[in-house]
């Protein structure tokens, strides 16, 4: 029997920082994000990838009954759609209307919060789930963490949140010779009570799931498309849909999970490489050979009662760089310092109760900020450089530390204001001030984004 194919595409754009200077700190409310650059990058990627790729996908899901796909759209990407690309958002809505497209859940801010704060993590997932419900009228059932960061504990947290599936990297050292094409489950164990309580309080879905299944990325076949497709020195070049399908069927198992950045289509691999023609041909070839492309939920449903394997992951893994660990974001001192500094503000920011400050603080949690600070120049550094909008990791840190410095001052000022308010029992004027502030913020574009993601590099 031919395996299923599970196609999932990651869609994300961070809010890149502008060239902040010391003179901006403590001066009113500087915008930390480079609206112009973020808009420019968003529009460029929209024209090259999102719009043409969505058009093609729409055509394909309508034409081929057995062709279904899944997306994970980060919340900051959706924010940028609302700022710079209603047309892009609309094309995703059209895809949603076909009923053949599944949307996954992730942290709204594409953050590393799963590493730092369960409460913050759950809040961001909940916000993302709500946003997907509002925009696309469906409730995500499967969770994908930022950059496929994963370990056993996270699977159970996702289960408590209500998800029945979770996406992870199929790492060789954990598979130990097994195929990533099988269905996996995490080892059974009970989470610490404090974590259970925290998740229960903020659970994104209505009830916890009994079981959770893991879909593992088949990184070889995924990367053949995402990274090697246009590599003329690659033995598989040029890659045709027929050949690729031979490889798929040859790799056996229940489901071949092809997970990749959506920007693969038209942005990482330009249209003139033939990537769209390749994509267009796939469902036709699959139909001829009786291969069905299912969404992650359908895949789990189809195989739920089959034999499952245990995927036992004690240390964090991810899909980034050849290390497939956290070193893309936590590999050096400045990265760790920046992450620690932003999460150290959690309590103070939340105490202000100021939605604008909360939103800015959360946008500063986007993993890309730390990715740009990576100094792994001797191995994967070239990939980091390619994806960075800044001159250097140190420039990334300079901008980021200025933003944090200013945010700290604003949070402290807001805390002072709150104290004054509570001191004076009736405080209509203070409240007025805050709401005016928020309004101002809503009226100007908060930031710009760009897209550059941590892209896994295949080995």
């Amino acid at each position, binding site marked *: 029997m031919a395996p299923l194919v599970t196609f999932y595409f990651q869609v994300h754009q961070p809010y890149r920082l502008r060239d902040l200077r010391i003179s901006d700190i403590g001066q009113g409310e500087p915008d930390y994000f480079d609206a112009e650059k973020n808009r420019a990058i968003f529009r460029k990627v929209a024209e090259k990838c999102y719009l043409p790729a969505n058009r093609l996908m729409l055509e394909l899901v309508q034409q081929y009954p057995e062709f279904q796909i899944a997306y994970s759209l980060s919340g900051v990407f959706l924010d940028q759609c609302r700022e710079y690309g209603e047309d892009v958002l609309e094309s995703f809505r059209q895809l949603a209307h076909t009923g053949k497209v599944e949307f996954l859940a992730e942290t709204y801010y594409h953050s590393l919060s799963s590493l730092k704060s369960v409460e913050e993590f759950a809040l961001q997932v909940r916000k993302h789930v709500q946003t997907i419900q509002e925009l696309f009228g469906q409730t995500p059932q499967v969770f994908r963490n930022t950059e496929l960061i994963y370990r056993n504990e996270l699977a159970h947290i996702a289960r408590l949140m209500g998800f029945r599936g979770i996406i992870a990297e199929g790492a060789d050292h954990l598979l130990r010779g097994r195929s990533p094409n099988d269905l996996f489950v995490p080892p059974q164990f009970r989470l610490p009570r404090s974590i259970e309580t925290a998740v229960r309080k903020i659970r994104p879905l209505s009830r916890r799931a009994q079981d959770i299944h893991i879909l593992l990325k088949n990184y070889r076949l995924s990367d053949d498309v995402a990274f090697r497709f246009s590599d003329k020195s690659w033995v598989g070049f040029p890659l045709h849909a027929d050949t690729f399908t031979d490889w798929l069927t040859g790799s056996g198992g229940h489901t071949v999970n092809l997970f990749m950045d959506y920007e693969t289509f038209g942005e990482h691999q330009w249209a003139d490489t033939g990537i769209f023609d390749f994509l267009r041909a796939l469902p036709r070839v699959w139909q001829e050979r009786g291969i069905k492309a299912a969404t992650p939920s359908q895949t789990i449903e189809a195989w739920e009662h089959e034999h499952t394997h245990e995927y036992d992951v004690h240390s964090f893994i991810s899909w980034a760089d050849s290390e497939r660990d956290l070193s893309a974001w936590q590999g050096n001192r*400045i990265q760790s310092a920046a992450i620690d500094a932003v999460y150290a503000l959690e309590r103070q920011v939340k105490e202000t109760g100021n939605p604008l400050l909360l939103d800015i603080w959360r946008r500063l949690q986007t993993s890309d900020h730390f990715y740009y600070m990576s100094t792994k120049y001797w191995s994967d550094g070239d990939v980091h450089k390619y994806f960075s909008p800044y001159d250097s990791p140190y420039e990334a840190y*300079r901008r980021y530390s200025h933003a944090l410095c200013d945010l700290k001052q604003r949070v402290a000022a807001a805390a002072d204001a709150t104290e004054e308010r509570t001191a004076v029992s009736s405080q209509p004027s203070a409240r007025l001030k805050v709401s005016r502030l928020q309004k101002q913020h809503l009226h100007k574009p908060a930031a710009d984004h760009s897209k550059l993601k941590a892209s896994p590099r295949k080995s």
Partner: protein
Amino acid sequence: MFGWEYPPKHLGGLGVACQGLVRGLLKNGVRVTLVLPHSNAQPEENMHVVFPTDEMRESVLVPSLLNPYDDEWTYEQRILTHSLPKEESSLYGHDLGQAVEQFTALSVEMTKNIHADVVHCHDWMTYEAGIRAAKHHDKPLVTHIHATEFDRTDFHPNEWIAGKERRGLQMADRIVAVSAYTKNLLVSHYGISVGKITVLHNGHDQPHDMVKPAILSQHGKKRHPLILFLGRMTVQKNPLQFLEVAKRVRVFMPDVEFVMAGDGPMLPFLIDRACEMGLQDNVIFTGKVHGRDVRALYQAADCFVMPSLSEPFGLVALEAIAHDTPVIVSKQSGVAEVLDHAFKVDYWDTDKMADCIITILREEPLSAQLKAEAPRILRRLSWKNQAHKLRSIYTDLIHHSTR
């Protein structure tokens, strides 16, 4: 090999680079005969047991008054004020052009009995000597370019000097440039074809007698943050920009000290300017510094700034890094090409330079990482490694010479 300065008698990076290359070549089994213009260079004094060099090398010294960074005006001044025996001064004359001619003629004469495989010369003062020697011996000519007239003069070259440079470059069988930055300049301003130029970055050898913190503070325990400029006070090194940056930093961090180490024609002007800008309490001019004092300064500095207008390489940045000091370098420099762990800023961007300094001073993790990571480059850029590449160039020339 024709050089024109060699430690301990040297004014700038050229002498250091020349010494590094010679020592590196010796380690790579290349025999070197070095021809120098000054009479009292004692390079052997500087050689320690770790550099068991000199048995293979003989140095032929040609006395000269030439100063590598002379232009005609400073040369005349020096001749006039120098307490030279009359005959020596008359031997070289008062005219720079004439002096170069005499140096050239003598140098070739001195090398008549040396049977070299390759003739290698460093910067314009030695080019004519190199051309003649290469012709005389019928050997390939390598011209090494450490700095061009365009770098020294903010792109207002003395045409006579630029002409000498151009001729040396044209006559060469192979040109060695100290950076891609310089290579591009040779292509765009001298019309040299790209294929003839090889980039060979300068190297750095860690001194073996490195003293760790000796003199850190001269005024009490609480030291003010210290920002260092070290270089000749000339237009090329852009010291005025350093003052502007100091002024900008002081707005946000009033207690920062700025040390300007080095001598040069702009020094009196810079002192006046610093006072006019109200920086007299923040800026210290040390004048020319040597040996231990240089190291003490590098070690004491919280940040080293090289704001050069146009810097073919910039060895001082590597020296600062060797002393675990974070560096900010001009983007218009060769060393920027090899540094991963440093800030690189356009030479004119005062605000950004100041901002980088402030960030380094404020953010301890940043400073710590720059200190820890930047020195990696020094291992890759040892003079032995760089000289090994030079040796390959020689071998290639010897085997493929069309002569």
